């Protein structure tokens, strides 16, 4: 909230003084393309998003007994910069389980593995799994680019774990605007 107030004051200042230099402000947003449906993983803009950092939330629908969620995100690194992630919801953390996070980042690509460790309780149903955080690339021109998933896998808690078949993943678009 403090950041918003400061930003607002800056904008007012720009409009009131002709001799001051106007600093461009980039704003990033995410637009998902599918509504949640059974056996899907859908990306949507999280509620905590701001112009300077958008949260892309992955929501599972009707997927039971998840041990591992493993995927690679492809995005346009001329538009957005991957900042990190935070575990969301209770799909992986139900019962107090520990989530092990693996990340491997390269330009325009980030591989992520989220695995439930420890004595948790299997979660059945729908819910958020993770929030990916992106920020706009400073100085970039306004653009819209695709964010998609590659090699997505979800494993259950069988022994040994089995990949859950038939789950569809839906990405979306990162939209960069400049004020």
């Amino acid at each position, binding site marked *: 909230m403090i950041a918003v107030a400061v930003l607002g004051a800056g904008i007012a200042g720009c409009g009131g003084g002709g001799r001051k230099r106007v600093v461009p402000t980039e704003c990033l947003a995410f637009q998902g393309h599918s509504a949640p449906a059974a056996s899907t993983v859908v990306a949507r803009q999280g509620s905590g998003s701001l112009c300077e950092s958008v949260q892309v939330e992955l929501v599972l629908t009707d997927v039971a007994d998840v*041990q*591992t*969620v*493993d*995927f690679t995100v492809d995005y346009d690194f001329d538009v957005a910069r991957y900042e990190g992630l935070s575990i969301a919801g209770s799909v992986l953390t139900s019962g107090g389980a520990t989530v*092990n996070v*693996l990340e*491997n980042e390269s330009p325009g690509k980030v*591989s992520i*593995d989220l*695995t*439930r*460790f*420890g004595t948790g309780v299997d979660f059945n149903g729908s819910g958020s799994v993770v929030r990916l955080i992106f920020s706009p690339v400073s100085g970039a021109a306004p653009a819209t680019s695709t964010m998609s998933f590659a*090699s997505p*896998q*979800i*494993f259950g*808690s*069988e*022994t*040994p*774990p089995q*990949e859950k078949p038939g789950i569809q993943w839906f990405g979306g678009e990162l939209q960069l605007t400049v004020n």
Partner: protein
Amino acid sequence: MNAVRRPSRGIRRILTALWVSTACLGPGESAAEPGAAPSEADVRDAALAVYIHGIDEDVAVLEIGPGGVGPLKALLADPEFPRRDNVVAFLAHLAEDDVTTDLLALLQSPPRSPSVPEEDRALLLAPQALGRVASRGGPRALAALLEMTEHDAEGGVLARTARTAGAAPGLRDDLVEMAIRGLALSGASEAVERLTDIAAGRIVPSSEGRDPRSAAESALAAVGGREEETPGSSSADTPEVGEPAVAAAGIADLDQNLRAHVAPLTYTNHVDVPSPMSDARLDDVLREATVRAGRDDYEEDVACCTAVRREGSGGAFGTAGDGRDIIGNENEMNAVLGASSARVKVVRQIDWCGGAVMNIVGCSFLPGSSIVVVRLSGISAEAILWIHEYGHNVGLGHTGDSRDIMFGTNNGSNRGLTQTHCNAYQLPAPQARITLEDIGACTDDDLDSVHDAVDNCVNVPNNSQQDANHDGIGDACQVPDIDGDGVLNEVDNCPFISNPGQADLEGDGIGDPCDPDDDNDGAIDSADNCPVVSNPAQADGDDDGLGDACDDCTDRDGDGFGSPGTSFCLAGSNADCDDTRTDVRPGAPELCDGRDNDCNLVADDLLCEDFDIDSDNSVDGREVAWLARAFTLCSAAPVSEWWFPVDYTADGCVDGDDLAILSTVWSCVAPGPVCSP
């Protein structure tokens, strides 16, 4: 070895005096501030010391000073204080005229046991003390002396003193003579007039008893300067008279030191000594003296193969009332030193030894064959006195080390002889006219730093020479097996502490329980990080409290693997190829960090295909899911377990090590290396 003791206040003051004499004060030292009041404890300590060559004005000022007169008066009034002779001597030099009251009180309430030599001397010194106070203009002190020597007064207060003290015949006459000396010391004209009258027989202080005229004549001679006192001179520190000194024997003459020798000392008491030395007492005294000379107590001290013993029974010299029991001038000293009846002559009091000094306890030729001593109640003090004076006879002067037997002040604990001193005792100057007896080889079989010839328990280490029943046999030899370990003392390498196996690690003859440094590396066992293996540097690479020399496993990083590896290391005998890092050890997960984490001699040697359990050309969620599902599972037969493919360390458990490996290789693409070049 004993630590260097801090000199007593008294000794420090003497040392200070020596330094002051050369205008060279040591760091932090300062001369006693004139008039500064010493504490009661300091005064007491100073009064308890034995000033072998007496107390003159310099000693009095340096030891206590005028500020200590109050505490001295309190000690004078305390009949239990053991050295009131010293107290009187100090007051004689320090007090003002009002001390007359205190000294007269002493004379009016003499000790019940005048046979205590220190109390006897306190009485005899009191009139002299009055004389010294009178010499500084004390009218009451002079008046007291004149009263004591009045015609037909029978000594006045002194008669009462003699009656009360009772035991010593002739005490009144002795005290009157002391009063006559006191008159001489005062130097007052009335005193000279009185002395002249007594010498002429016009005044006879006592109608019965000893004729005082000769004493008065001697006193007048002293007043006339024929026996001038030389206050502040070094006479008290060089009391020895007679033949010239010779240098102590040199190291080159030490062949005789391979043998032990005993010096036989003859002695005799003056007939008027109320507490004569006895054969039995002297045997104890000389035994103590011998132990002090024959024991190595500190670094500069040597276990000198010398001994002193009593030769014959003590006879008597002099005649009753001849005055030679109280030596007050050069003539009397020469007469006693010249007596050939024995080497050591025991008298009551000595007030002259190369100069007039109060309360001297020993005087001897340096070198020479004669010694005069008084009695001392303390056996240690008397032992040191006798061997000290004999040291002068063999050619030794004083030393500046307060631990030495030849130090000029006896503090009751002097016990050292340097090698040079020992040489002199072993090869006495010819003027000593003594024939040493060879008493055997200079050996120390039990290694207790007491040579065998004087050791009261030759085969059992007993440096203390403790001998509770004074039978000459050390306590260590009284019980055949004092520690009850089944090994007789004489062959027990640790006689006082049970050591049935006679463990003696380094074979030095001292059993391990008795050996403070079993490995002889200079580190005392209690502080040695490896007490049974020599490691002077005390190196402890892994800081585990065990020195490297005896540490079965030196594991600096605490990861269980040592360098070098040994079977005693917690994690096995394989060597840790970098014992400074916990992430490098045998079997450690290889990481992409440029290090050979698993100690297989290759750094970063990870191939993706080795971790791709489903052969889908990548390490991804499947491997992680497997590992997560199997996490913490273990098996004695892991090969047959479904999770064996993710037991990357092949240790039978899926654990953090495997997760660490997986974290490194996850998302790699097979075939190919995991780590970037």
